C-alpha cells in the first residue's frame, strides 16, 4: 500500500486526523523506503528553519521600531476606538459617522492630531469624520453659556482662516473625556481635531474654554482667524445655521 506525498507531508505538519495518523505510522513501521522519504522531508524542514530562524534573534532595526511606534495611524480607527470604548455595547459610533467626500472642500482646515505634527491626514485626505447624534445637535444648538451637566458640551466658537465657523467641544466623561474641534462645512460638522481632555470639573461654573486641554488650544490657535466669537456673535451664527 502506498501513500501520497501530500499525506506524508501532512503527517509531518500534524495535519492528519487520529485515524490517518495511525495509518501512516503503521505504514512507516513496515516500510524502510517510506521512512527514508519521511527523513528527507524532515531534513528539508530542518534546513528551512535553520535558514530562517536566525533573523528572529537579530536586533530589530531602529527604523522598523520607529515606524511601528510613530507612523501615522488611521485617525478613523482612533476616533472609533475612543468612542466605542466609551460606549461599550453600542454598534455604531454615537457621535461620529465617517464619510468620504472631496478633499477640496476642507483642504486647509485640517490640523494635526494633538501636538503630533504627523502628516497622517495626507495619507487619505478624502475621508472625514462628521458629527452626528448628540454631538451634532450640541454643535448646532448649544451656546457656550448653556453648560449642560451631561453629554457633549460646546466651548469656544470661532471663525477659521478658511472662513468656516468652528466650535470646540468636550464629549464628557461618558465618552472617555475627549475634546475636539468641529467645523461646519456644507455636509455637516467635520471633526478636525480630537484630543484627550481632563475629566470635566464638577463645578458647572467652569466654562469649557477654561478647561480646554493645551493640545486643543494649540489646534484652535492654528485654525483661528481673529478672536473667538462673543456670546452675541455666537447666537447670530446659530441663527444663520453656522454658515460662513
Amino acid at each position, binding site marked *: 500500500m502506498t501513500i501520497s506525498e501530500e499525506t506524508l507531508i501532512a503527517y509531518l*505538519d500534524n495535519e492528519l486526523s487520529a485515524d490517518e495518523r495511525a495509518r501512516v505510522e503503521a505504514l512507516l513501521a513496515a516500510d524502510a523506503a517510506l521512512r527514508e522519504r519521511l527523513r528527507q522531508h524532515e531534513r528539508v524542514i530542518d534546513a528551512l528553519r535553520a535558514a530562517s530562524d536566525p533573523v528572529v534573534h537579530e536586533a530589530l532595526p531602529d527604523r522598523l521600531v520607529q515606524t511601528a511606534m510613530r507612523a501615522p495611524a488611521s485617525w478613523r480607527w*482612533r476616533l472609533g476606538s475612543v468612542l466605542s470604548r466609551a460606549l461599550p455595547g453600542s454598534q455604531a459610533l454615537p457621535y461620529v459617522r465617517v464619510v468620504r467626500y472631496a478633499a477640496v472642500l476642507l483642504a486647509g482646515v485640517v490640523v494635526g492630531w494633538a501636538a503630533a505634527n504627523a502628516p497622517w491626514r495626507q495619507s487619505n485626505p478624502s475621508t472625514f469624520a462628521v458629527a452626528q447624534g448628540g454631538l451634532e445637535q450640541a454643535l448646532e444648538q448649544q451656546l457656550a453659556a448653556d453648560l449642560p451637566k451631561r453629554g457633549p458640551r460646546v466651548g469656544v466658537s470661532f471663525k477659521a482662516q478658511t472662513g468656516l465657523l468652528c466650535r470646540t467641544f468636550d464629549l464628557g466623561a461618558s465618552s472617555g473625556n475627549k475634546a475636539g474641534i468641529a467645523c461646519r462645512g456644507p455636509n455637516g460638522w467635520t471633526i478636525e481635531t480630537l484630543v484627550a481632555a481632563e475629566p470635566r470639573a464638577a463645578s458647572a461654573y467652569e466654562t469649557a474654554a477654561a478647561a480646554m486641554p493645551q493640545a486643543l488650544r494649540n489646534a484652535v490657535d492654528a485654525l483661528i482667524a481673529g478672536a473667538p466669537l462673543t456670546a452675541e456673535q455666537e447666537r447670530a451664527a446659530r441663527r444663520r445655521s453656522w454658515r460662513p
Partner: protein
Amino acid sequence: MDDPLETVRRNLVALLPRLRRFARSLTGNASDADDLVQDALERALRNLHRWQPGTKLDSWMFRLTHNLWIDTVRAKRVRAAVPLDADGVELASTDGVRELDARLALAATNAAMAKLPEEQRAAIALVVVEGMSYRDAADLLQVPIGTITSRLARARTALAAVLVGDGAKPSEVL
C-alpha cells in the same frame, strides 16, 4: 489610561521578529525584507480601521505583508532575488568545518527557496517556517485548503531534490 493605539503599536513591535522572518522568506534578501516590513507597518497603521479588533493582529499583518509583496512582484516583476548572503547570518557552531558546512547548507537552502514559484514559497514560509496550520495559511492566502496541501507537497519535493540530493547535508558530511 491605556491608549489602544499605543497597545497596537507595541503589539506590532512584538510581531516584528516574525514579520521580518516571513518577509525574508518571501523576498529572499534582508534589505528587501525590511523594506517590505516597513511598508506593511505603515500601511497597517494607516488602515487600522480595517482591522477588526478582537481578530488576530498577526494574521492580519501577515496577510497585509503578503499582499504587499504580491503587489510588488506584480508591479516590478521582481525576479527571485539574490539569495540571502550566508555570511551575514550568525551561526551557533564555532567549529570551523561544521560552520563552513552550515553556511553552504544555508546558502543552498536560500537558493532553493528563491527558485520556488511565489505561491509555493508563501505556503512554505507560513506553514514550515511560521508553523501555521493549513487552515490558517489557506485563509491568509485566500485559497482552498487543498491548494495549500498541494503547493506544500510540490515545494517540498522540489526542495528535497535540491537539498537532500547534493552535499548540503551537514550530518552526513562530517
